[in-house]
Structure formats: C-alpha cells, structure tokens
C-alpha cells in the first residue's frame, strides 16, 4: 500500500493503531515531493529537517498516549501563513528572504495538535490570481495535465494535495482561492465563514474577505482540520466569539429532507456544457438521497465581479502600503531619498498583477472617485449579502448548490493577456466572500479531457456543519474524490 494515498482520516487511524509511524508517513510524503515537485513546482520551501523532527515528536506523543486526531499528520501550508523561523514569501520577490519572527494562529494550533509541517506551498503573488501564474517562484502545474494551471491562488496546496505530496493542506480564500483550485485539481476545499478562523499571522490581501481553510481529499478530512483551526482568537479582532461545534459528529446528520437551492443565475452563458452536465448529475444524486431541490433566484449575482474588483484592490492597496523597504523585505539599491526608496523598492519587489491591483485600489479610493466606486461597491456588497440571506430564509434552505468554476483547468498562459478574462474565473465563488458565508468545493466528475469538475455548496453564516454533512453524504454515494491523477511525469 502506498501510504500517501490515504485520506487524512485513514492516516490518523493508521497512526493511532500503530500500523505506520509519523516518521514513515512523513518520509513517504517527502520522497514524493523530491520526486514530483521539480516538475509540479507545488512547494516554494520544503522543510525536511523540521518535518522529520516534528514526526519524531509525534511518534513519541503516541507512545505517551498524548496524541490527538491530527498528531503526526503531514501537512502542506500555503506560503501566506507566517511560520516562525521558516521562510514565508507570499509568492513575492519582495518577501523572498522574509523569515517571520512569529507564528500564525492557525499553524500554531496545528503544530500544538501535533501536525507535521512539510513545507510552504506556491501561490499567486500576495494571493492575487486565479491560475498560480503570478508567483515570483514560477507557475504550478496541474497534476492532471502538466500543461494546465492548477487554479489559484492556493494552486500549490491544491497540486500538492492532488498529487499525494501531503495528507492535508491549508489554503486561503479571498475570492475563491481555496475553492477554485480545489475544483480544478479534483480535491475538496472549504472556505469557512468570515471570522470563523483567525487571520492572525496570515499575510493580508483584502482584510474583510480573507479567510483560511482546509484543502483535503475528502469532506471528512476538511472537517477534521477545521475542528482544530476554528475558534475565537484574541489576536484577531474580527474572529467570531462563538462555540465551535463537533464537526465530525455532525457529518453524519441525515440529509433526507435537506432543502437545496439551485440559483438560476449560476447556470447562464459562459458555463461549460460539460460542467453543467456534471452539476446536474450532482443534483440527481441529492434527489436520490432524499433532499428537496428548490429553484431560486439571486438577482444580484452578476454584480459580484465588479464589486469585488473594487473592494479587494482597495483593501489590498492599503494593506500593501507596508512594503516600503524599511522594516522587512526587499530594498532597492542606492536610494537617493526616501521617496525613491519607496518607489523603486515597490517597483522591483511587486509583479505586474500586484501592481495592477494596487493601482486600481489606489484609483478607486482617490479623491473624487471614492463615492462613485468604493462607496457604491460597499452598498452593492450589502445588496449581494441580502440576496443570499433572503434566499436562505424565504425557501428555508440548508444549502445552495452551484458549479465552483465555469470551466475546467485551462492551459498555462491562456488568460495572461487579458486580466478581465482571468477575473471571470471567480464568477461563482466571489459572491460568497462578499457575503461572508461558508462554502466548499468537492469533486463531482471529469470532462472529456479527463480534467476534474467541482461542485460548490454554500451555507448560512457559521453553518459549516450543514455543508460538510451534505458534502460527506455525497462522497459516501460517489467515488470522484478518490480518483487520482496518473503518475507519469
């Protein structure tokens, strides 16, 4: 048996029963990374030494009977979470040598639970991108077809998970950056409710939208990671003070009678016919499982892209003002004065997409345009959130079901010339971030080219349990999530 094919739940079981050790499991992952990463480019930094040491400590915890469900599990961490004494680049030249002096809350919690950190995964620069092509460290290749992108911005975590380089992975999602790459690489990805998981130690992109979440083989695995990640953190003033339910226990909630809304607006022009057919098949599975399928309308849907591309760049332009060449990160050579230091440092350190978004954000916030763009977008954002709240309430829905992405993985370079066509990749995921709701993507089939298709389940705020239960029920009835890419390189 190849232990890297195990789900997280199976690996936890194998570790607990003594069938394998964390050292064996971690070594197996590191070996696969050494074999496949030169081609896939999923990791920016691999921490072999740290991982083997953590594995050894995990094995000791099992001996001392102090192990928990994540003890000894090898994880891949998006290179956006600050990890103390382990380089954290955010996919940028500007932070290529940044070694954080502190640990993000999420990785601290996972480490405290005994998880093993294999390394830091590739990503679009500052999480700005939908194809992982804006990374300073080069594009990531999709394990299902190496000529195609894995999606973004958490493309490295997605590819690592799909190729079996880790047992679980972490991503972050500002406009779809967990769900869209999960969809394009045939894995499961969950964006929790905004505020469910602490953002402390996550390098900020758009602070009112960013949220960390698990990227895993199964919904059950996502629930196991979320259990440890979720909860109030005094270090993040936007984290929600609400009890964290037992997600594992709630996975088995019956979905018979679950009311699933299908919004007409997510099935219009631009949706690939093969994706549409796959989603229609998911709906049939739920019908067979005893759920009620309810057609709904979310009329504000089409305004999400312009709204997002005002709000996210506005927040980004403010957040990225901190990269000034003074306290950390890249600094230009021989600055003639302070302004020159700022302007050239930032010109050299940021890539084109980041510059474009800083420019856009600065423009929409600038005097004379604030009301027309930024304030207007914030008002439309409320209308979008109200749209969802109304639909959930009026139809008494548990879940809203949609495609995750309008198409399957595209070819490397296909959308680089036109930013707008790239932005449209997030058309089905962005609404969720604007409204702050939880949503997951799960594999639901393949197109004729053999590329994975993803289905999105959205839930009410703080109701991760219902979308996880619905996703788990689907994965009990289907086999898409255990289908793996071929291993020829």
């Amino acid at each position, binding site marked *: 048996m190849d232990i890297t094919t195990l789900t997280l739940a199976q690996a936890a079981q194998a570790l607990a029963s003594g069938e394998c050790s964390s050292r064996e499991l971690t070594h197996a992952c590191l070996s696969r990374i050494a074999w496949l990463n030169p081609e896939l480019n999923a990791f920016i930094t691999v921490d072999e030494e740290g991982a083997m040491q953590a594995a050894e400590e995990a094995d000791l915890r099992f001996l001392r009977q102090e192990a928990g469900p994540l003890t000894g599990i090898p994880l891949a961490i998006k290179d956006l979470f600050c990890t103390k004494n382990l380089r954290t680049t955010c996919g940028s030249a500007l932070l290529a040598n940044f070694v954080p002096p502190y640990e993000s809350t999420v990785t601290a919690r996972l480490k405290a639970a005994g998880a093993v950190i294999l390394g830091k995964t590739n990503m679009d620069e500052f999480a700005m991108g939908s194809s992982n092509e804006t990374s300073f460290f080069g594009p990531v290749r999709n394990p299902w077809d190496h000529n195609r992108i894995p999606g973004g911005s958490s493309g490295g975590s997605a590819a690592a998970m799909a190729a079996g380089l880790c047992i679980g992975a972490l991503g972050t999602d500002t406009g779809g950056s967990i769900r869209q790459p999960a969809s394009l690489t045939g894995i499961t990805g969950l964006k929790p409710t905004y505020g469910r998981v602490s953002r402390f130690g996550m390098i900020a992109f758009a602070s009112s939208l960013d949220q960390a979440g698990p990227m895993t083989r199964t919904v059950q695995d996502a629930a196991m990671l979320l259990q440890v990640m979720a909860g109030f953190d005094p270090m993040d*003033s*936007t984290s*929600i003070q609400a009890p964290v339910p037992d997600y594992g226990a709630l996975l088995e909630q019956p979905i018979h009678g679950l009311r699933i809304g299908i919004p007409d607006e997510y099935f219009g022009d631009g949706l690939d016919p093969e994706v549409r057919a796959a989603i229609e098949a998911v709906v049939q599975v739920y019908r067979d499982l005893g759920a009620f399928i309810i057609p709904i309308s979310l009329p504000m849907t089409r305004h999400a892209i312009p709204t997002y591309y005002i709000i996210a760049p506005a927040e980004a332009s403010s957040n990225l003002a901190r990269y000034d060449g003074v306290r950390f990160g890249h600094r230009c050579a021989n600055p003639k004065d302070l302004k020159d230091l700022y302007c050239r440092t930032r010109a050299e350190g940021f890539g084109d997409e980041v510059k474009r978004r*800083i420019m*856009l954000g600065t423009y929409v916030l600038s005097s004379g345009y604030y009301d027309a763009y930024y304030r207007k977008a914030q008002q439309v954002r409320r209308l979008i959130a109200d749209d969802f709240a109304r639909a959930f309430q009026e139809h008494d829905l548990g879940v809203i079901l949609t495609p995750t992405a309008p198409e399957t993985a595209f070819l490397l370079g296909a959308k680089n010339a036109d930013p707008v066509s790239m932005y449209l990749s997030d058309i089905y995921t962005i609404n969720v971030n604007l409204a702050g709701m939880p949503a997951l993507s799960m594999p639901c089939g393949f197109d004729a080219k053999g590329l994975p298709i993803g289905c999105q389940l959205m839930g009410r705020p703080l109701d991760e349990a219902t979308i996880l239960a619905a996703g788990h029920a689907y994965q009990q009835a289907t086999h898409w999530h255990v289908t793996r890419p071929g291993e020829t390189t």
Partner: protein
Amino acid sequence: MSITENTVRHVATLARLELSDAMVATCTGQLSRILDLMEQLRDIPTDGVTPMSHPVEMTLLERDDQVVNSNQRDALLANAPDTMEGCFRVPKIIE
C-alpha cells in the same frame, strides 16, 4: 470609462510605484477595461443602502491593559534591510 496616461502616472505616485513608460501604457489600457466592467454598478439603485464594510456585525472587544509582549527588538530587526544601533535606517530625510 477610459483614463489617461497622466491619471495613471498620478495614481502611481500616490501608490509610491515607479512605473516604466511601457507599463504606464499597458496599465492605462488595462485599467480602462477594468473600469468599464465596473460601470455596470452605476445603474443599481442604492439610495439609503448602508455601505457594508465588513461581513460580520460585531463590536470590538476590549482586553485588559496588560503588557503581553516581551522585548523582541532584535528578532524584529533581523528582517530589516538596514539597521543601526537598534533602529531601522533610511536615507536622510531632512537636508
């Protein structure tokens, strides 16, 4: 809505970004196209709609007024490109 190269240069100064002439030209075209996409919001009636700055309605918590951080000066300076005597060093500001 199309914007001019002059506007792009002005915004770049505000954002403290040095842009090459080629990048200014590209940016002008691309930003105009992105701003066109945003024009559709103009027609949505939003009178009386309270802007949503944040997805969660919450009040900020207060914590006890106690020092929780130890002195981490050297650790924090370790990433700085240039330091002197425990401080960040920048080019001279005042002539």
